[in-house]
């Protein structure tokens, strides 16, 4: 018997332990943020931390990004499958995995660290930490490219290994990680940041176990998951019932579709019949697609309550085994996030017409991951940048869409200040302003995307990016107009202009300007219902031109 046994305790102590579990994952999150070496972790928050029970069920999560909440369960399960918890897992062990098809969930850059917490010789819980490492080797700088065709090109694979064995670090592994990365110092620093974060959690959890006893803790965890399920089922009961569908077309012309069936007992998402596994890197694993379902469910069923394994009990996903939404090893997956956000947006689109109080019209719906690098013009050191972009959100039933916010896949993600970016990254930023392109009008207008212009200051730089929603803008709702699209323009020093929605290691030289343009969100409601006073204010604030206002709203000053 490897597990502790639960000892029932009074409701007050239960509540106190449960709130301590949240405090522990919050502290793990804060520690990671403060010790990480790269802005993709500490500012973009492309990382997550969680506590699982002894069986690998999510107990508490400290993630600031909804997209990472459900990602750590499969990682812990993969450890339990490979290592017998009774004979092969010990106090002081730390495991490491990143293969998306086998418990890593997302892409090779997202490295999962897992620490078992032992009390009295038995596993009480698992702590896990997953973070986007800037570079894990492979063909492409940043280890990401839409052009990858198999996972071997995308970097170093860590097939669920024990990197720290009873507190003894396997230095060989660290050395291999370092030599395979284009940024070894950052890679090793981020590894230790992850370890520090889990060890902080372990200390607190052990103190809690000492105070209340492992049996009480176990009871509180079980009760917490039960409560999560009870809250979830109650929220499910309040949702509109029926079958809801949406279709869309990807930028490369593939039709995608989703059917959602909501009953009193289940929330079933049927993604069968979608395009097969792709030859490029825009594939998602089954686990990544399941996270999309978790996120949309949480948005409509108790967005402001906690989430744990109980919350997601009513969910079910049906998807073809070899589809682009559940691709098999060794398919390439480095750009999985764009495929995942397509699924998320599709589910959102299916439900928005019946749940407008929770869901606005379509937003810019692309992570807009922008990877650039080269030698820093001041230090001469190799430098790389990983940045998602902010964009416009859709209008909704009682207000205009939000301007310039990260996607629904992100959360408490911060952009990098211009002043910091220029010093750190060795670029100039010529402007950062709202996108004034036409589109997304409605009774409630779509929010604005941005224009962000990076000026390159040294020769031999490169850019890799793959934005979706580059052909067709975010969908309007209830008569609102479609928004605009995501893309970049490269203005060459000689005056030439190029437009891309996807490129790999495109050369950039001193004096070139990369202009990022993100989409304006979709409108809500017919434009003819927008009061003229609001249109006048829009013109005054430069959100719309007088001509366009006249054309769309029939407004004359």
């Amino acid at each position: 018997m490897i597990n502790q046994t639960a000892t029932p305790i009074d409701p007050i102590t239960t509540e106190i332990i449960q709130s301590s579990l949240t405090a522990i994952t919050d502290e793990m999150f804060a520690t990671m943020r403060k010790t990480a070496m790269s802005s993709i972790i500490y500012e973009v928050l492309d990382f997550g931390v969680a506590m699982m029970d002894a069986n690998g069920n999510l107990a508490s999560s400290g993630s600031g990004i909804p997209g990472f909440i459900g990602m750590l369960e499969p990682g812990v399960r993969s450890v339990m499958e490979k290592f017998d918890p009774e004979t092969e897992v010990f106090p002081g062990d730390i495991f490491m995995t990143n293969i998306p098809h086998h418990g890593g969930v997302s892409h090779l850059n997202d490295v999962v660290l897992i620490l078992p917490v032992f009390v009295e010789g038995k596993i009480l819980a698992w702590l896990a930490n997953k973070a986007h490492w800037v570079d894990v080797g492979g063909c492409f700088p940043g280890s990401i490219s839409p052009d990858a065709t198999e996972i071997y090109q995308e970097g170093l694979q860590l097939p669920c290994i024990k990197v720290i064995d009873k507190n003894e670090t396997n230095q060989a592994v660290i050395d291999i990680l370092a030599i395979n990365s284009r940024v070894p110092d950052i890679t090793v620093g981020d590894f230790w940041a992850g370890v520090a974060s889990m060890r902080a959690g372990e200390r607190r959890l052990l103190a809690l176990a000492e105070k209340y006893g492992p049996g009480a803790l176990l009871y509180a965890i079980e009760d917490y998951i039960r409560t999560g399920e009870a809250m979830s089922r109650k929220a499910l009961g309040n949702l509109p019932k029926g079958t809801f569908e949406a279709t869309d077309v990807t930028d490369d012309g593939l039709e995608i579709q989703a059917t959602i069936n909501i009953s009193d007992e289940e929330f079933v998402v049927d993604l069968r019949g979608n395009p097969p596994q792709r030859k490029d890197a825009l594939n998602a694993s089954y686990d990544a697609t399941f996270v999309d379902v978790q996120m949309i469910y949480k948005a409509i069923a108790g967005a402001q309550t906690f989430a744990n394994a109980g919350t997601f009990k009513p969910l079910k996903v049906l998807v073809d085994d070899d589809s682009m939404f559940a691709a098999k090893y060794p398919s390439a997956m480095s750009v999985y996030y764009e495929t995942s956000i397509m699924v998320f947006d599709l589910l959102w689109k299916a439900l928005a017409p019946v749940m407008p109080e929770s869901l606005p019209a379509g937003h810019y719906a692309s992570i807009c991951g922008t990877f650039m690098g080269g030698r820093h013009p001041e230090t001469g050191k190799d430098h790389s940048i990983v940045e998602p972009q902010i964009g416009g959100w859709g209008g909704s039933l009682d207000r205009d869409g939000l301007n310039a916010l990260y996607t629904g896949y992100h959360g408490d993600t911060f952009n990098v200040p211009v002043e910091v970016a220029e010093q750190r990254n060795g670029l100039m930023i010529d402007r950062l302003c709202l996108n004034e392109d036409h589109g997304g009008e409605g009774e409630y207008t779509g929010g604005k995307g941005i224009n962000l212009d990076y000026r390159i200051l040294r020769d031999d730089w490169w850019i890799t990016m793959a934005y979706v929603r580059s052909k067709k803008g975010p969908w309007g709702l209830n008569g609102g107009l479609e928004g605009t699209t995501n893309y970049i323009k490269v203005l060459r020093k000689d005056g030439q202009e190029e437009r891309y929605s996807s490129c790999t290691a495109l050369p950039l030289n001193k004096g070139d300007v990369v202009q990022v343009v993100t989409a304006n969100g979709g409108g809500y409601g017919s434009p003819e219902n927008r009061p003229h006073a609001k249109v006048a204010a829009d013109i005054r604030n430069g959100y719309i031109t007088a001509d366009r206002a006249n054309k769309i709203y029939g407004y004359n000053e």
Partner: protein
Amino acid sequence: MANIRAASDIGGTFTDLVYFAVDEETGQIADMKAVKTHTTPDEFQAGVMTSLDVAGVSAKDLSFFAHGSTVVINALTERKGVKTGLITTQGFRDILEIARGNRPDFFNLRYQKPEAFVPRYLRREVTERLTHRGEVVTPLAIEEIEPILQDFKAEGVEAIAVCLLHSYANTAHEQQLCDEIKRLSPDVTMVASHQISREWREYERTNTAALCAYVKPIASAYLSEMENALQRGGFTGSFYVMQSNGGIDTVSSAKEVPISIVESGPASGVLGAAALGKMLGINDIIAFDIGGTTAKCSLIDGGRVSLTNQYMIEKDARSAGYPIMTPVVDIVEIGNGGGSIGWVDEFDKMHVGPQSAGAMPGPVAYGKGGTEPTTTDANIMLGRINPNYFIGGEIKADVSAVKLAFEKLGSQLDISATDAARGVIRIANHNMGNALKLVSINRGYDPRDFTMIAFGGGGAMHAAALAQELNIPKVIIPAHAAVFSAWGMLMSDLRRDYALTLPLALEPSNAAQISKAFENIRAEAVEAYTSESIDFEDVYFEQMLELRYEGQEHTVQVLAPLGGIDGTAIKDLIDSFNDAYERKYTYRLKNNVELVSCKVTAFAKVDRPEIGKLDASVFGPLKAAIKEVRGVDFDEYGVHETTIYQREKLAPGTFLSGPAVVEESGSTIVVFPAHTLKVDEYGNLHIDTTGGLS
């Protein structure tokens, strides 16, 4: 003019005045007194003058008057500032609206982003550009300013904020812009970002400048009225304003950048704790303040109040809020106070707060119609608060209503009324304990090395239990716990905090540049003080460096030597950084260390007499301090027949063993079984949670 020194702190409910006369013979403080009057929201200064009247103190007898006020934070949260325009660098007028793009309420797809304080049509751009080193790429197009000012005038703009990109590295363009505005519109209210902050992050700095301009006319008018009211009363002493950084400053400086007083009330309580610690020779302190709706705590390390430059207003789990980049005492605040309500949710979970019964209807015990039990009610239910001496005897607590409320609460969980009351206190203590951990354990400090100084209405009641939980060995309940914020101001020196972002590798070759940066800041500080007739001899400094490993974002602060910094000093600083980093995060790296900013705190000494000691011979025997014996419920430490003492009658040197309760007007001190209590020579109460005799 008699030599009376006074401080007044305006809170939401009460205006506190603390004052003392200086004994001509001993030079010591003769007798410290306090007056509480009701706050007069529309005319704060009238309330202050009334409190002086009530105290019988004439303005002309005041040699020193320090003032803390909520005028700035109120104008911000109630959106009662003026119509504000912003001038910024070409290409960046939307920074204020874009903000940082974050969505803390991360599952919610109907998030509402905080609205910018300056609308887009009042955000204007000028041609100019600096690099991050402060070099000029594009000179300022000064001719563009006049048309902007004309537009602002036509729109009825009453205050202008200026924030240019990289102005922290070079203030010249902002300065030129301000000079031009002054030349064209001499009377316009204006704030430039560099007057408040020389640190990078353009959104934070722009927002700070905008919010400062937005409240400046209101705050200046208020401070002028306050000065006038005092002068009409014959005041000729020195008038100081309490700032958010835990120090006072001159009124002229506060009028210039009023955003510096945004958090003055809570800051002065922490300052009071630091000042009391200094008096008693205690340097490592956790300041803990429980009010009606919230509890606040802050850590004082080596006598130094911790500051943050990441202060936010209106930020919570649902909203990104607004950053204010001005040094503010680093306080963790949670929604648990005496009025916080205990409740059970639909999934049978008990919670306490953040809803509060407020002043109306207040706790059930007030008998003003409240039916939901609060933390205060739980303390009555358990016999810790005397129902017959409730709020200093102002009200007789409605004990039967309290019982009924807890019976109702307990029935939802199938537990007794007493267990429900215990539950409310345990959960409230747990919440407050988490806040205390956030400022201590989570930052790498061991609570066993600290003394808790507890104040505010509820501080003394919960302090000992919390200290025990966190293994804090000693708790001090100050003599003036109920008016501690105002007391803190009386103990304060002038304080100005300067920070300069200077991203550099921390290596011996950069020593001269770092040394020079410190020297320049100190010179600037001395010049500012002496221009306000403050003696150069009274100015003293503290210097810190914000350091990190190359590539990181978050910094760790390290104390820097006051003299020149050379190569050896740099090596020592790297060692101190590695030690401090390891203490916080359990590991160290061999990576390069990077400087982010230089920080200088410039104090100016305020002449301050010593506080006199109490004369034990004027007190009666301990027996005379006993009010009664009653049953008090100490939760897991049992129900005990407990002796209740009157605080004012406890002589210095008195020693008591728990269980005991000490009552004073407006506050109750609970001494648990196995704890001991000692009264020091100033009348502060020291509780030893280890039961020791010291």
